[in-house]
């Protein structure tokens, strides 16, 4: 070190400079020892700017599918890794996390979710696309802690009323819901009963019945944005036909959707995402496709063209409706 009064040491750097540097590090680097260098660096590691979003979407469980509940078995080592990362990041974040993102193949346990909920009281947005291992009490306890919750990405579940009821009771600002899986009449009626003030709903890349769509449009009077891009739209028919795929949005649905600010649809045969939804029979298998695609939502990217390997998705305004049309390259 140069012996000069003017020379400053690395640990004497302003916190805001250290924060600027640490913003360029990912979650693994932030939690793997940077905070242990010295107390000044630890202080910088606790800055709320670094912890507005805790994105664990690069972390996934090492698991195998099993025939019995919870239908997955998660390897103990990957479970411990998640626990440690949660422990350190939730300690450093000092309750400033507002967005929490889990990978769709990261199977969080009851204990991990409860631990997280207690330490993220300011949470506004939660992306939790798989909760096979979370029991009803664990989920309810977590939601009770998230009074500020506004947005949730969730899987399709067998018994939706309890969770929607918890949200309606405890999350007064709740307005956005994204369901990663088929939405049936039971789910739609639960939505109507417990979340009538929902403003944004995304059902993209799933199987959707026409009567379910009509129920949603009729009962969610505060709805502003509805995304049914790349959905397989079905119509129930009397026996023996039972059901058929609808190729385009009919006049009834258009009229009902005309009050929406955004109505995002795509049912093109040439669209790669639509083809994928059909191939996967309305329950899209995200692990087969481009990494990060599962997180995408047209409603969030309005006005931009979403590029992926095989197609460009473009949004077109048609009257008061917005349609998502896909063009093959």
């Amino acid at each position, binding site marked *: *070190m*140069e012996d000069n009064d*003017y*020379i*400053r*040491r*690395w*640990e004497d*750097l*302003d916190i*805001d*400079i250290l924060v*600027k*540097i*640490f*913003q*360029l*590090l990912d979650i693994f*680097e932030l*939690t*793997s*020892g*940077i905070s*242990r*260098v*010295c*107390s000044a*660096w630890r202080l910088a590691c606790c800055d709320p700017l670094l912890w507005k979003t805790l994105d664990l979407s690069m972390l996934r469980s090492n698991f195998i599918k099993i025939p019995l509940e919870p239908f997955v078995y998660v390897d103990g080592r990957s479970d*411990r*890794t998640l626990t*440690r990362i949660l*422990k*350190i990041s939730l300690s450093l974040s000092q309750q400033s996390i507002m967005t929490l993102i889990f990978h769709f193949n990261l199977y969080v346990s009851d204990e991990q979710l409860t631990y997280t909920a207690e330490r993220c009281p300011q949470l506004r947005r939660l992306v939790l696309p798989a909760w096979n291992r979370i029991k009803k009490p664990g989920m309810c306890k977590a939601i009770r802690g998230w009074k500020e919750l506004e947005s949730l990405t969730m899987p399709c579940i067998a018994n939706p009323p309890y969770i929607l009821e918890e949200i309606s009771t405890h999350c007064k600002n709740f307005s956005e819901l994204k369901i990663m899986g088929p939405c049936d009449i039971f789910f739609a009626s639960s939505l109507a009963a417990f979340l009538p003030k929902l403003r944004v709903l995304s059902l993209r890349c799933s199987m959707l019945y026409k009567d379910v769509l009509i129920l949603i449009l009729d009962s969610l009077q505060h709805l502003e944005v509805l995304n049914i891009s790349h959905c397989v739209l079905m119509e129930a028919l009397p026996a023996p036909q039972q059901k058929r795929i609808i190729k385009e949005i009919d006049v009834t649905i258009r009229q009902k959707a005309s009050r929406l600010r955004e109505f995002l649809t795509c049912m093109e045969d040439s669209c790669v995402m639509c083809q994928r939804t059909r191939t996967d029979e309305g329950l899209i298998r995200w692990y087969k496709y481009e990494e990060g695609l599962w997180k995408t939502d047209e409603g969030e990217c309005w006005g931009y063209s979403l590029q992926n390997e095989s197609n460009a998705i473009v949004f077109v305004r048609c009257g008061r409706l917005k349609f998502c049309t896909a063009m093959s390259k």
Partner: protein
Amino acid sequence: MAKESGSSKIEMLEISNEAMAEAQSSKIEMLEINNEAMAEAQSSKTVTMKPAEAEESKTETQKITDEESKNVPIAATEEESKKLSITKVEESKNAATATTEGEKEEAKVSLKTLDGVTFEVEAWIAKEMETVQAYIDDTSADTSAAIAIPLHNVAGRELARMVEYCKEHRRASVSAGNLKEFEERFAAALNLYEMKDLIIAANYLNTKKLLESLSRCIAKAIKNKSVEFVRDYFGVTNDYTTEEEAQYRETNAWAFRNVDEDSRN
């Protein structure tokens, strides 16, 4: 075309390539140009003429249509009325614009560092330093031009580097490849002490591009390295107690696996 007034105000004409060729073919002599002015005229491809000769060339270029001459500016000063400069513009542009001989120099800003060195930098460089720009905006234009702006947290050495960075960055930003190469070269030329002082200066002056570039460089040095290596590399003193250290190591044993070799690369 506007008519000339009694005080013989000469209009500056936008002459098309065709008209320019005609004007050149009329073999107008270049008069009253001293050696210095001649050199200047040649370097900027400027032909300077007497008013009378300019008149002559004007009559030859009367072919210019009314539409073309609608937006022609009128020479306002006496100096402009004495000399008319017909500048040959790049071939890509289909017009030769008449300009005044004295080209206005870009405004400069004086900056005084903590070790008493005064720098005169171009206004665009001062603009890159948001703290300096804010000072200029807050004080009147006259004051900021007359007084050297004091920079209490920046030494001459750092400011010189920042000015160099701004200039080089501007040159290199023509292509992304050049820019990346330049930033790597710039960072590689700095030792740790210089980098630390420069990042403090860049933060104080809020020079965003330099701050981002240096932050990236330091983050790269930290990535996937052990705590001991980071301490050693940056010369940071460990102010944790032995107990705290042991406890931390026990709790986060997983964090000490799979780190890079303790080397600078």
